[in-house]
């Protein structure tokens, strides 16, 4: 069970939106993490530079936060084999579907893209069904 954290959720959301908006201002690019991360695969092109830096910033955020603010709660109960399967599905599915939680769920819906709204409803639905089966059926 987790605590409902409305204020930190809203504040964190504003910061995520701000970062995505600024990326649009400075680079004219959408902050879709699956697209940015998969762009690191070879061969590299003119887009790879900023992508690498964006990802390095993303990775650096946690250690910096720990030094400046404090612990980051991470509770991960899934066994390694399940995580391996989940990772492949997340990687393949996000590319086939053209985006993930950030690209479709935040950036796409913010510009009212019908594709992104449909994609978000779809992955929310299959994710909820998966959790339901795992927690309440199996």
């Amino acid at each position, binding site marked *: 069970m987790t605590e409902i954290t409305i204020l930190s959720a809203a504040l*964190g959301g504003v*910061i995520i939106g701000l970062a995505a908006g600024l990326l649009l201002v400075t680079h004219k690019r959408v902050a879709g993490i699956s697209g940015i991360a998969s762009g690191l*695969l070879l061969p590299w092109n003119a887009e790879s530079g900023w992508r690498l830096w964006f*990802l390095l910033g993303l990775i650096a955020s946690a250690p910096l936060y720990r030094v400046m603010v404090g612990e980051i709660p991470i509770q991960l109960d899934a066994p390694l084999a399940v995580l391996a399967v989940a*990772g492949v599905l*997340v990687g393949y599915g996000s*590319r086939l579907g053209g985006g993930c939680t*950030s690209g479709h769920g*935040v950036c796409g819906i913010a510009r009212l893209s019908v594709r992104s709204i449909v994609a978000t409803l779809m992955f929310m639905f299959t994710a909820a069904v998966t959790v339901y089966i795992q927690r309440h059926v199996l």
Partner: protein
Amino acid sequence: MIKNLVAGSLGLLFGFGLIIANMTNPSKVLAFLDVSGEWDPSLAIVMASALITLAVMQRLMHLSPETQTSCDGVKQGIDRKLLIGSAIFGIGWGLSGICPGPALVGLSAGLPAVLVFIGAMFVGFVIFNRFHQR
């Protein structure tokens, strides 16, 4: 170089947002997805406030992405790939409680579990490139 440093600081900012919103915690994400359990709406609040912030910025500054390299806004219409890909993504997300952003932020936590997930995610990217591109 300046553009890269800016991209780096925006990645940092994005990561701080995820951390503050507590979205780097898989059990928090799963508590949102578990609608029949003790439902935690936090993730919906994060998404809503992020996309409202972004939508307001886009409106105020007349922003639109020049090209959509990171996601597929140029494409129109609902096709099979969109539906199947998103469905597959959702199953992986539901199994783990992890999506690409939080996975990368969690990398520095040094948990073998996160490393396995990220490695597998890149395997998924490669499989996609093999079968659908170039």
